[in-house]
């Protein structure tokens, strides 16, 4: 089957209709955020109450959505989509705030205000909430879970952090659990005769060594965090299990996004394999910024001055301006052909899931109109 043939009308729409959660994954710079926004627009027009969560939105996208003050960490409603009032769909957009989401989890699971304060003001915790590897993915999944249970919305579309590994996202909720499971945590929690756990733990050889490397202040902060966190592990772990269950739910769809270049296609194929291995499967693939086709005409053999090699004999066209136009067409076709060849592996792997090729536009995306241009190709 040809690639173009797979862009069956409405097939992306089927994915939207049968999903409560859509996760867009792919490597950095392939247009995941734009894709998520376009899916959100279409879903709203179908009558869904959709919220789009983005990780690292460019200012330009916020502008395009009419949010000139930028996206905020709570959902904002997007106006001017032209949703049929009888249909009643809504689109909301928000930006992931990793640290604030983590703080919210701590507040939910802590026993009292004193514990909340001790944790939130701890430097090790602040580092962890802001930067520990996997935290961003974990909080994206957590946010997704919270929005899924929010009555205002019936569809959540999320773009994932630009990690190399699809499993980083799928496994993210387990990151903290595993971290807390480490023996090191248990060591830090060992009661000591003095009752002063911080000093007791710091005397363990392992912590002495860590202290030598990172300094004793930093070590003391870390141990204080582990102690303050004590008692919350179970709550965190149960919540993480819920989030994982949602990611694997039947009405959660994973959409792989790529650009038509060998490197991002290789990544997309890798993502798709990983999802498959996890029994999740790819609901659709979207390739952004494909060089458009300009029609099914063949190049003449002689265009007057040196031009691309072509196979139609016997046609002679005047040189000069027309030759330049033929050369232009030839160059654009050459790029398109190279791109179509590059995305073959993704086409083969994701079959029979729909694959949509979105064309490179002749302008950039700066308003709802240009997002609409993309939408028309995704939802023909």
């Amino acid at each position, binding site marked *: 089957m040809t690639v173009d043939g797979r862009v069956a009308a409405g097939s992306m729409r089927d994915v939207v209709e049968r999903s409560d959660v859509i996760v867009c994954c792919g*490597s*950095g710079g*392939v247009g995941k955020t734009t894709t998520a926004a376009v899916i959100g627009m279409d879903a709203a027009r179908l009558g869904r109450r959709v919220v789009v969560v983005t990780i690292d939105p*460019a200012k*330009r996208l916020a502008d395009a959505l009419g949010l000139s003050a930028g996206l905020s960490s709570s959902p904002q409603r997007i106006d001017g989509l032209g949703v049929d009032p009888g249909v009643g769909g809504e689109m909301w957009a928000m930006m992931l705030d990793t640290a604030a989401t983590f703080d919210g989890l701590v507040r939910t699971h802590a026993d009292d205000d004193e514990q909340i304060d001790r944790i939130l003001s701890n*430097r*090790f915790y602040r*580092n962890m909430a*802001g*930067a*520990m*590897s996997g935290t961003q993915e974990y909080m994206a999944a957590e946010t997704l879970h919270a929005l899924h249970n929010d009555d205002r919305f019936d569809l959540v579309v999320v773009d994932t952090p*630009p990690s*190399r590994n699809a499993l980083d996202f799928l496994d993210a909720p387990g990151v903290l659990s595993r*971290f807390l499971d*480490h*023996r*090191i*945590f248990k060591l830090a929690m060992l009661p000591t005769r003095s009752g002063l756990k911080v000093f007791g733990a710091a005397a363990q*050889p*392992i912590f002495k*060594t*860590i202290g*030598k*490397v*990172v*300094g004793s*202040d930093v*070590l003391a902060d*870390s141990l204080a965090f582990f102690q303050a966190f004590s008692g919350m592990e179970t709550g965190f772990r149960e919540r993480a299990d819920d989030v994982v269950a949602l990611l694997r739910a039947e009405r959660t769809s994973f959409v792989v996004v790529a*650009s*038509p*270049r*060998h*490197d991002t296609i290789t990544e997309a194929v890798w993502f798709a394999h990983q999802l498959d291995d996890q029994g999740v499967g790819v609901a659709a693939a979207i390739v952004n910024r494909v060089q*458009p086709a*300009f*029609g099914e*005409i063949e190049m003449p053999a002689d265009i007057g001055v040196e031009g691309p090699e072509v196979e139609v004999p016997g046609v002679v*066209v*005047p040189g*000069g*301006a*027309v030759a*330049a*136009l*033929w050369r*232009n*067409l030839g*160059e*654009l076709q*050459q*790029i398109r052909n*190279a791109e179509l*060849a*590059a995305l073959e592996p993704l086409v083969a792997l994701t079959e029979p899931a729909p694959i949509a090729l979105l064309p*490179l536009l*002749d302008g*950039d995306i*700066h308003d709802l109109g240009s997002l609409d241009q993309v939408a028309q190709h995704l939802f023909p």
Partner: protein
Amino acid sequence: MSENPLRSLTAANVVVVAGKGGVGKTTVTAVIARAAARSGQRVLVIELDGKPALDELLPDRDGEALTVVHLSAPDALEEYLNDHGFRRIAKRLNRTGVIDMVGTAAPGIDDVVVLGKVKQYEKSGEYDLVVVDGPAAGHAVTFLMSATGLADAVRGGPIRSQADDVLELLAEPERCMAVLVTLPETTPVNETIETAFALEEDVGIRLGPVVVNGVDQGTDLPAPDDVDAALQAAELDHAVIDVLRDAATFRRSRRAMEREALDRLAVGLPLGQVQMRALPVAGLDADDIDALADELIAESGS
């Protein structure tokens, strides 16, 4: 345009190539390294994290001294800890756990350890030029800021002295500079301008010229009026005329967009610009890198 692009791109011992995902940072790294090696320099390329791509783009070529090494932040941190007395006591503990904990307790420690290795290579005297392909997730500022953050948090010990060494490296313009890579499009240009100012203010690292990757330097197009006249005179089929005209219109507006982005970059950033042309392919291979390196050398008149 810089007068001698190759010289200005390789004007320090260490060149850190930085840019967001998808802008072609790795291919630009490869082109700079290849061109420098071809000009007789002993070049080391350092690839950080991510999937190794540079081995394939930079195969051995006769008469050129070019080496590729991979450094991964977690591995570098583990090695560092092992060298500092961790191995003896860690046997029965979960290694990743300790590494996660150290990495979280002192964020940026893995980046500092990596930059410390870069400094070691620079000091070894074995290379005339070290080119670093920036971290995969592309946060050049965080990566280069790591030493500043650690120096604030950690008051003494081996990590502190390593952070100090790294800060020294970053502050010396003859030893180290950053080259930003972007695309001739609105959003990448906006982000590059922001990153450049952040690097200058927060890190204080010297900035080399900005490399604009994928600039359309293909066939020249006639003016729209000439297009119409020529197409009428050519007596072509209507369908063909439409296709030719549409393709020309499309390319012209893409180019106008590129020009607008390049102009805004020039106004927004008082740095040199080096352009690399777009090739009609879906990803560069080693031969393409050679070709672009030769063009860079030719432009540099050497």
